[in-house]
């Protein structure tokens, strides 16, 4: 029983980077911008979030810095693809490289090489009064760090926005058929800009979560492919906020099983466990490929002066 509670608690804890990065990807994708720079933006968010927290002595400021960096990358992506109409994958990969490069460059410049890694305090547990006293559910759901609650509330809000409001409907129209959306008076360019920027900010925050919850410090390539997994999760979640939220439970579950199975004392060499998240992701993509619903205009650039698209 204790083990199960610990496991489920860890799953919820590990779900956050997937939820944030994937919702960020989904937002941009809903207006046709296919971001492939997640891994780079997350690494930069992790690096910058750590550095700012370390220097300022406040994790919240670090999170804001990571979000700002992600937003700038989102803005660049939107500008290059929407205004300059450049290939989304080329630009996404370029931003990925710059993010990775900056993520290792900044700590070297700001902190330098130290014998023991500098540490920041990890995010505190926020117990919700009364609710945290419920047996079983209490410790799993209501004794987590603040970003766990944030990622759940964010997902619900995004769902409400996309499927229950006029603006959300308009946004979805931009990703399905921008020409029609444009003819109905929806500002396609503005929609693409703000979703890419907000999406980038969420992806940056997803990166900052790693040093602030798992390690207390930044290490090179610490995302371990979570940025790429988030793209897979977005496809798996059909670019819909609630399916992404539930799907992230699966991704987090696999990660907890794989990276922490050593603690349980499994006899298998740990290298086999390291492969599990990636192989499981490919498997889940195979199983769900038929159902995968993708915004029709994903990855394309809208040119209102072009006759037919």
């Amino acid at each position, binding site marked *: 029983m204790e083990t199960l509670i610990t496991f489920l608690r860890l799953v919820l804890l590990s779900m956050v980077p997937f939820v944030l990065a994937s919702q960020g990807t989904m937002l941009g994708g809903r207006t046709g911008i296919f971001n*492939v720079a997640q891994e780079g933006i997350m690494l930069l968010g992790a690096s910058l979030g750590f550095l700012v927290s370390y220097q300022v002595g406040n994790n919240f400021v670090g999170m804001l810095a990571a979000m700002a960096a992600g937003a700038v990358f989102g803005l660049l992506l939107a500008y290059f693809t929407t205004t300059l109409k450049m*290939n989304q994958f080329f630009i996404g990969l370029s931003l990925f490289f710059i993010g990775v490069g900056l993520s290792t460059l900044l700590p070297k410049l700001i902190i330098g090489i130290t014998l023991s890694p500098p540490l920041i305090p990890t995010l505190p547990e926020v117990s919700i009064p009364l609710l945290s006293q419920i047996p079983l559910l209490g410790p799993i759901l209501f004794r987590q760090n603040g970003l766990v609650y944030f990622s759940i509330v964010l997902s619900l809000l995004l769902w409400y926005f996309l499927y229950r409001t006029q603006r959300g409907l308009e946004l979805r129209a931009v990703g399905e058929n921008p020409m029609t959306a444009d003819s109905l008076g929806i500002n396609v360019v503005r929609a693409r800009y703000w979703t890419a920027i907000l999406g980038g900010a969420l992806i940056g925050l997803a990166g900052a979560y790693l040093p602030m919850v798992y390690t207390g410090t930044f290490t090179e390539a610490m995302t371990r492919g979570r940025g*790429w997994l988030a793209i897979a999760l977005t496809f798996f979640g059909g670019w819909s906020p609630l399916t992404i939220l539930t799907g992230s439970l699966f991704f987090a579950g696999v990660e907890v099983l794989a990276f922490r199975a050593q603690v349980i004392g499994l006899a298998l060499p740990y290298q086999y466990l390291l492969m599990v998240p990636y192989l499981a992701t490919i498997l889940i993509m195979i199983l769900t490929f038929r159902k995968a619903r993708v915004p029709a205009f994903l990855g394309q650039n809208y040119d209102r002066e072009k006759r037919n698209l």
Partner: protein
Amino acid sequence: MKALGRTILPYLIAIAVAFAAVGIFIAAMGFDVGRAYQTILLTSFRTPNGFIQTLLKFIPLTLQALAFTVPLTAGKFNIGGEGQMIVGGIAAAAVGITFSDLPPVLLLPMVILAGVLAGAFWGLIPAWLLYRFGLNEILTTVLLNFVSFAVIDLVATGPWRDTTAGHPTTIPIGQGGWLPMLINNPPLHSGIILAVLVAAGIYIYTSRTTGGYELVATGANPRAAEVFGIHVGRMFVFSLVLAGALAGLAGSIEVAGVHRRLIEGMQSNFLVLGLIIGLIARGNNLAVPFVAFFIAVLEVGASAMQRTLMIPVEMVFIVEALVLLFVLLSDVVRRR
């Protein structure tokens, strides 16, 4: 001549702007920009050793870049060159260790071929997933990189582990599997000939043969290609498998020529640099070796700069990424 100038000019501007932008940053950090850039650009040409270091980097960079540009010709993105190279290296080392007593006539081709085949197999997996299930190849190729990290760790810490080495490393492959040396001091192995021949072969294939033309047609407009009877799905598979073979060759050359054993982490950052090279070359297979040489010069210079001036190597990586961004931007400028 004028046309050549018009192609090269945007590159020169992109390089100049990237260097200027990072130069301001380096100066702001309180480093000597002039000495930094001298070191970056000239280390390769000051000593024989520097030049050969550059050639040694040029080999895997060219192959990795081609592993990206060949599928790109057909409109597919292979971000899995790292895994394909690792798996190629593993297979090369496995053959080289298992049959270590064989003479060079047999063992060397076996080692090289093992790497090529293993890389091709690693490329076949995403190709098949794309063909059979329509899975996005960007994702599957990347995810397989992470699988390969675990595989190489398994092999390098397994029964073949060299227990005297601090880092996960296997025992050496048999002498028969070593690539012959062209120059002994400083050491340059004959893998460079292989790389140049392969690069030339890829260029001739994609620009001068029917099969290559089908690849180009598929990339230009898959629907039109389909109408004209090209089996587009098969072209995708073929291009990804060929890419895997190229990256696998890079792995076996590193094992047979440079390390003579399998070392964890030997893939370095060749994948990312290969992608940058392929994109700067705009997917043009003829341009790839030249861009690869330029990047190899920068990389060798970057290491020297870090050693002598204490400026982090990543600074040069940012320069490379910015060159790419400005080269891409020059298309927009030209369109206007």
